[in-house]
């Protein structure tokens, strides 16, 4: 219908893949950090809180640069991962997923943390008197009750990942077929003469994807909420 070119389809497919992988890998960390911030008091909590929200307030290009020097080929972590696990981030789509996950992380942690803080702890006490150890209390009571927040966090992260531009282009550049997401493709198209029509098509796709994510999250959250109201 939009007559998208193969290159444009590639950018869309890459954007989706990168955002889904970024969200999936960020989720366990998001739940763990959200739980720590909601439930535990420890030395350095304010610092952790700050670090988690840092990508939200730093210029994305700074985050991208920090990723480049730490997760790049010669970066401390990047060299280690490449050497021992064969995982390479620099100039790969995996690197784009990493930067998107980090940029989306603060938006993911916040609703999860709020949902965990809102849970009636006395229900967890009740579960423990019924024989559930701490792990099972978390799995059968805490997590299901926090589900609307977890879904909201995942969608926020996914949406942020779809739109990520600055950190990603700084870290893994703008390589068609590897790291060129919708945003990067739009940017490239706007730099060349006659690119505006193609850019416009991708803009429409970006709007449609963002709307779909929002509607899906609304639907999931309502379903999860309905389970508590009954029927």
């Amino acid at each position, binding site marked *: 219908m939009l007559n998208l070119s193969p290159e444009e389809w590639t950018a869309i497919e890459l954007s989706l893949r990168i955002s889904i992988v970024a969200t999936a890998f960020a989720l366990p960390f998001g739940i763990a950090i959200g739980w720590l911030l909601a439930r535990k008091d420890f030395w350095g909590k304010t610092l952790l809180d700050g670090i988690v929200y840092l990508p939200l307030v730093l210029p994305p290009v700074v985050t991208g640069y920090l990723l480049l020097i730490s997760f790049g080929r010669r970066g401390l972590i990047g060299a280690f991962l490449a050497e021992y696990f064969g995982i390479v981030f620099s100039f790969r789509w995996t690197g784009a997923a990493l930067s998107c996950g980090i940029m989306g992380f603060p938006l993911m942690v916040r609703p999860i943390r709020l949902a965990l803080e809102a849970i009636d702890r006395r229900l967890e*006490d009740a579960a423990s008197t019924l024989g559930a150890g701490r792990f099972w209390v978390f799995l059968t009571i805490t997590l299901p*009750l926090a589900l609307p927040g977890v879904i909201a966090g995942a969608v926020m992260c996914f949406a942020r990942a779809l739109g990520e531009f600055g950190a990603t282009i700084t870290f893994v550049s703008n390589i068609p077929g590897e790291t060129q997401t919708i945003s990067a493709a739009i940017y490239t198209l706007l730099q060349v003469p006659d690119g505006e029509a193609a850019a416009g098509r991708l803009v429409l796709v970006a709007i449609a994807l963002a709307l779909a994510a929002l509607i899906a999250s609304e639907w999931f959250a309502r379903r999860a909420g309905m389970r508590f109201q009954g029927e």
Partner: protein
Amino acid sequence: MLAVDVEKSLGAFKVAACFKAAGGVTALFGPSGAGKTTVINMIVGLIVPDRGSIALDDTVLFDAASGVNIPPNRRRIGYVFQDGRLFPHLSVRQNLDYGRRMSGHPRDPENFARIVELLDIGELLERRPRRLSGGERQRIAIGRALLMRPRLLLLDEPLASLDAGHKREILPYLVRLRDESRVPMVYVSHTSAEVRRIATNVVRLDAGRVTASGGLELLEEPDTDSIG
């Protein structure tokens, strides 16, 4: 036989309770703020005493001197909370089954049916807790605690949050429970009429201390708000 001898300071308030409870229903009786809930929270393990010991039959549940403190999930003590505390995301049936699943007991349809019948909750099994009346909720909470096959059942003012009509609804079930199940119970209440109906022994608690223990003769004159 439950043997409790514990001390706990909560700010300026101090609870120092020492009593024994054999089979039947032991009422932990006293005015609001006497520390009754604190005492049973220590029995179940949700509050850790500062000093003392708690033993159930020949199991030491807590002993400050030797550092024993069995966590609540391994004490096998059923607890009916004042506010029910049913899990809102689970159906009534799943709520009832929760303790059995978490304790790793095999399915026992016969016992399930017996307790469903005892509490008359067969109609409610597929509902969500939101859709229940206060009295129904409390019956499910009692069933949930019973179905984990507890060695001891604690009831924390199970009627306090109910209006007079619902109190009359629940009391007969509690009396049946006392007469038909062999689980010893500790029943927390500040209403002597209620205690008179259900209890076999009484432990009086005032300002955090046990002031008397014995039979039903410890109760004062029936209070005016009779619950039939």
